[in-house]
C-alpha cells in the first residue's frame, strides 16, 4: 500500500487510516460530520497527494489531447483549467480529469489515483502524435484548501500574486516557502477553494504552514469521508460510482463536456451513434422519503410496476442537506424529475422521488 508524504502528519493528527485506491489515506480525523460542516462553513484541508499528474508536452500536445480527451482543448488558454474525460472506443469513461494549459505546448492532466497508471498506459498507447507524455504522479503532492474561507486563508500567504484575481477554473504558478507551486481555483466539495500542486518533498512543509496559519480561519484537516459526502451533495460524479468504462459518458451526465463537433476523438463514433438512437440510461438524483439509506448497488424500482429500472451509484445521508439522498443510473423513460421511485434496501422497498441535481449549491457572495 502506498503512502503520501503526509502519512506521519495524519497519524500525528489522529487520522483514521483506511485503504483507498491502493493508498493508505485518512478517512477522518475529528469526525466526518464535523469535517463536512467545517468545509461548508469555514475551511478544510485535504491531502489529495494520491491524485495522479500527467504532463503532455510538445508542439502537437494540443492535437494529441483533442484526440485523447472529449472536451474542446482548443477552448483553453494559458492559465485556464478544464474538466474533461478520457473515453474508451465505446464512449465509456476511463477517467474524468482536469486539463491545465500552461502554454500551447505544455498541459498538465490531474487524474484519479485509482486510474493513474491505467490512464498513463492508455494515453501512451493511443497518442496519435509525437507529443511527450510523462507520468509525474510521484513528483507532486496536492493539498486541497476548500471552503468559504479558503482564499482568505491562502491569499495573505502567497504574496507575489493576487490569488483573489484567479477566477474559478483558472490557475497560477507562484512562490511559497521558497518553491514554485501551482494554485488552481478548483475543487471537489462544492465550495470555493484552491488545489495546490507542490513538489513531493515540500508537501509536509506546506501542510504544516496551512494548518498553523489556518487555525485563525477555523481550518480543520479533513479526510476522504467528508470529501465523499461533500462531493455527493454537490453532485460531482466519482469514478467507480457514477463513472466507469461500462457507463457511457452520455449516460453518466457528462454530455456537457463531450464535444462531438470538435473533430475526431476516441469514443466519438460510439457516442454519435448512441445519441442518434437515444441514450438508454440517465444519471439522476433522488431523495428518500421513508426511513433508510440507499447505497451503491441497491436496485431502483418503479413503485407502480415493481419493475427494476436502475441501480444506485452513490448514496448516504449527508450532513448539510440532512436527507437520505443519492445518485442512480436509471432507464431514460423513468428519469423524469419528481417521478416516484423506490430503492430496494436489504430487500425492503424504501420510497423516494427523483429530484434535480445538485443537492447543494453554495450561495455566491
Amino acid at each position, binding site marked *: 500500500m502506498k503512502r503520501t508524504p503526509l502519512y506521519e502528519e495524519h497519524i500525528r493528527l489522529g487520522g*483514521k487510516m483506511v485503504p483507498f485506491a491502493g493508498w493508505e489515506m485518512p*478517512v*477522518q480525523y475529528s*469526525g*466526518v*460530520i*464535523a469535517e*463536512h460542516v467545517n468545509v461548508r462553513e469555514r475551511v478544510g484541508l485535504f491531502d489529495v497527494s494520491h491524485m495522479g499528474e500527467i504532463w503532455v508536452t510538445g508542439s502537437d500536445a494540443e492535437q494529441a489531447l483533442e484526440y485523447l480527451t472529449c472536451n474542446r482543448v482548443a477552448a483553453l488558454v494559458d492559465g485556464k483549467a478544464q474538466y474533461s474525460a478520457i473515453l474508451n472506443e465505446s464512449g465509456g469513461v476511463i477517467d474524468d480529469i482536469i486539463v491545465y494549459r500552461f502554454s500551447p505546448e505544455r498541459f498538465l492532466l490531474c487524474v484519479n489515483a485509482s486510474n493513474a497508471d491505467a490512464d498513463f498506459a492508455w494515453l501512451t498507447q493511443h497518442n496519435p502524435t509525437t507529443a511527450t507524455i510523462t507520468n509525474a504522479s510521484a513528483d507532486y503532492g496536492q493539498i486541497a484548501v476548500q471552503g468559504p474561507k479558503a482564499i482568505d486563508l491562502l491569499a495573505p500567504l502567497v504574496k507575489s500574486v493576487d490569488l483573489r484575481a484567479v477566477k474559478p477554473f483558472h490557475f497560477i504558478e507562484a512562490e511559497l516557502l521558497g518553491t514554485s507551486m501551482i494554485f488552481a481555483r478548483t475543487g471537489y466539495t462544492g465550495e470555493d477553494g484552491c488545489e495546490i500542486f507542490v513538489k513531493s518533498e515540500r508537501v509536509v512543509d506546506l501542510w504544516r504552514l496551512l494548518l498553523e496559519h489556518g487555525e485563525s480561519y477555523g481550518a480543520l484537516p479533513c479526510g476522504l*469521508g467528508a470529501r*465523499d*459526502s461533500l462531493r455527493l451533495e454537490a453532485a460531482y460524479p466519482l469514478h467507480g460510482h457514477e463513472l466507469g468504462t461500462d457507463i457511457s459518458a452520455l449516460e453518466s451526465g457528462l454530455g456537457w463536456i463531450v464535444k462531438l463537433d470538435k473533430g475526431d476523438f476516441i469514443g466519438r463514433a460510439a457516442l454519435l451513434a448512441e445519441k442518434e438512437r437515444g441514450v438508454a440510461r440517465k444519471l439522476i438524483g433522488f431523495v428518500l422519503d421513508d*426511513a*433508510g*439509506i440507499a*447505497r451503491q448497488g441497491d436496485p431502483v424500482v418503479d413503485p407502480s410496476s415493481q419493475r427494476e429500472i436502475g441501480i444506485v451509484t452513490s448514496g*448516504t*445521508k*449527508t*450532513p448539510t442537506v440532512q436527507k*437520505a439522498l443519492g445518485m442512480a443510473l436509471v432507464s431514460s423513460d423513468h428519469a423524469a424529475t419528481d417521478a416516484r421511485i423506490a430503492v430496494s434496501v*436489504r430487500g425492503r422497498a424504501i420510497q423516494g422521488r427523483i429530484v434535480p441535481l445538485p443537492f447543494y449549491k453554495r450561495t455566491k457572495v
Partner: protein
Amino acid sequence: MEFPQNCKYTKDHEWVRLEGDTAVVGITEFAQAELGDLVFVDLPAVGKSVAAHATMCVVESTKAASDVYSPLTGTVAAVNDALSADPGLINKTPYSDGWIVKLSNIQAAEVEQLMSADQYKSLVGK
C-alpha cells in the same frame, strides 16, 4: 476508552447489561469509534425473535452500513426510538442514551458465556 464493569461483551463489539429479566444491548465505545458518525439506525420490530450471533439490526455511518449482531437469543422487547431522531446518541453515550434494544426471553447460560469488561478490553487492546 471506557468499558463499564457492569456490562458483558461480545467479540463483535456489542455490550449487554442485565436489568432483571431483560438484557439491554448496545455497541461498545470501540465499535462506535471504528464506525464513525452514525446517521441512521435500522431498528428491528418489537416482538421479533433474534438468535445469538445473527443480525439484529443495522447501523449506518455516512460511509457504510454495518450489521449489529444479537449477543443473545431472545425477543425484542423494546427499541430505542430516540435513535431515529438522533443516531449520534450511539457515538456520544454508547452505554446509556445510545442503547439499541432490550431483549426478553433470554437464557442465563448464554449470558454466562459473554466476555467480562477486562476480557473485552484486552481483545480490543485499549
